[in-house]
């Protein structure tokens, strides 16, 4: 991917307008931190870029390397190099994880992997993510803990090798050790040229990932697009200064909650660390 452009994107969920004219671009090699209060459209934007049919597109375009992908299905977007690590990954009853990974990897290739090639790649990815290989025999995400699901998302990212990876609160549900593993995998992918669009509420993750840019989403639009120093400012001051300095009144949550099972372990750990 050379460039992803979001042009005047409007979208709604169940008749509620969530995105109200989003303009944003991401270039190759960039790592963009997307911040914003809860319920202001960050997850909706990521889902819409990936093609989630739950969101209704009301206007605007998504352009990937000059191609209008606004109306493409999620599978075609994935094949063009987009990846979304989801906030609440689905549990699929009966679908063996290894069978799923093989189907996903083969979907990205002209010629299917041999069993030996697949097994070697899968084994390496499980090892890198610190997940026992035994987990590959279990049904996809079924009965996984919150942390296991998040690691499993990054494992899929490693195996599919996208050019733009979007991470939606990948740090929620992860303990400190798991965050280190996940951050290492992300940084290695970034070093190889993968671009990132990262949503998190915690500066801790961003300090580990060192984004090259940061943007703040308020009321379904990008209110601020600037350098990574925005992350520390939000961590220190919250979002009140946006109203003060930019005159933008921050509405109450406009998007339905996507965060039904997420737990912010990072914040708890940080509070404990600081208390020592």
């Amino acid at each position, binding site marked *: 991917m050379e460039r992803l452009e979001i042009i005047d994107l409007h979208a709604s969920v169940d008749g509620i307008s969530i995105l109200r004219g989003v303009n944003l671009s991401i270039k190759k090699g960039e790592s963009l931190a997307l911040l914003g209060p809860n319920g202001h459209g960050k997850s909706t934007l990521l889902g819409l870029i990936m093609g989630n049919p739950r969101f209704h597109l009301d206007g605007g375009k998504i352009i990937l390397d000059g191609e209008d992908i606004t109306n493409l299905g*999620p599978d075609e977007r*994935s094949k063009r190099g987009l990846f979304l690590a989801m906030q609440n990954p689905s549990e699929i009853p009966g*679908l*063996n994880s290894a069978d799923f990974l093989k189907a996903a990897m083969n*979907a990205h290739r002209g010629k299917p992997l041999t069993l030996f090639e697949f097994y070697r790649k899968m084994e390496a990815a499980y090892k890198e993510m610190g997940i026992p290989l035994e987990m590959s025999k279990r*049904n996809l995400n079924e009965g996984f803990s919150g942390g296991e699901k998040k690691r499993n998302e990054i494992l899929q990212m490693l195996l599919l090798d996208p050019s733009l990876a979007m991470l939606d609160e990948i740090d929620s549900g992860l303990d400190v050790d798991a965050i280190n593993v996940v951050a290492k995998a992300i940084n290695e992918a970034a070093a190889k040229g993968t671009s990132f669009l990262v949503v998190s509420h915690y500066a801790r993750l961003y300090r580990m990932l060192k984004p090259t840019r940061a943007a703040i989403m308020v009321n379904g639009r990008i209110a601020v697009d600037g350098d990574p120093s925005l992350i520390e400012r939000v961590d220190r001051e919250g979002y009140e200064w946006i109203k003060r300095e930019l005159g933008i009144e921050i509405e109450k949550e406009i998007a339905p909650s996507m965060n039904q099972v997420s737990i912010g372990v990072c914040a708890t750990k940080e509070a404990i660390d600081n208390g020592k």
Partner: protein
Amino acid sequence: MENSSVRRIDYFGAIPNTLDLTVGAGERLLVRFLPKVAFSDVRYRFQVGENASIEVVFADVIGHSGHFESEILLEGEGSSAQWFLSSFASSGDKKSFAPSVIHLAPNTTAKVESYGVATGESRLDFSGVSEIRKYARKSKTRQTAKVIVFDPKSDGRSAPMLKIGDNDVEASHAAVVGRLNEDHLYYLESRGIPRDEARRLIALGYLLPVASRFEERERKFVEETIMGGLFHD
């Protein structure tokens, strides 16, 4: 069931319309059905003696309409039964299955598991009774019947019944009919898997646990038949 001392009967291809089998005291029987031609009205009865056990495996994946009824009578003390069904209905199929188990003696156990997928304009109906008669104390019975409905015009019913005539028993049942979860499809598609393939994986995930009780050749038949049915719809 261990293979060594198990009597095995396989019906692959045409299956009989009626069947009356007895499992003698201490005997172990495995009966597997994989119909490859249509059946319309089938009624089976299995009588299970003291400390005997029966396992029935039924993989119904071909396109047809029909009614299936079976009755497993746990007549001998300590006898047990396991029933596993996968049914795939496509196009305009109308299928109904009513597997029943009757506990007539003490210390008997039964597990009935039926899984179904309905696509196109098909209809799939699961019923059947798990009954524990009076004096069949210390018996345990469990019945699960789940149907997943793939398309707007497909229909699924799941209404198994429990009848309990003794207090000193354990019984449970689960009956579920659910639509194909769009979030599941989206999740698989977001990993590059085309929609048809995603539907196939979800359907197979639902039905293959039963198919895995067959050998490779039969499993392949099940998988290919389901794939054909999905793409036909």
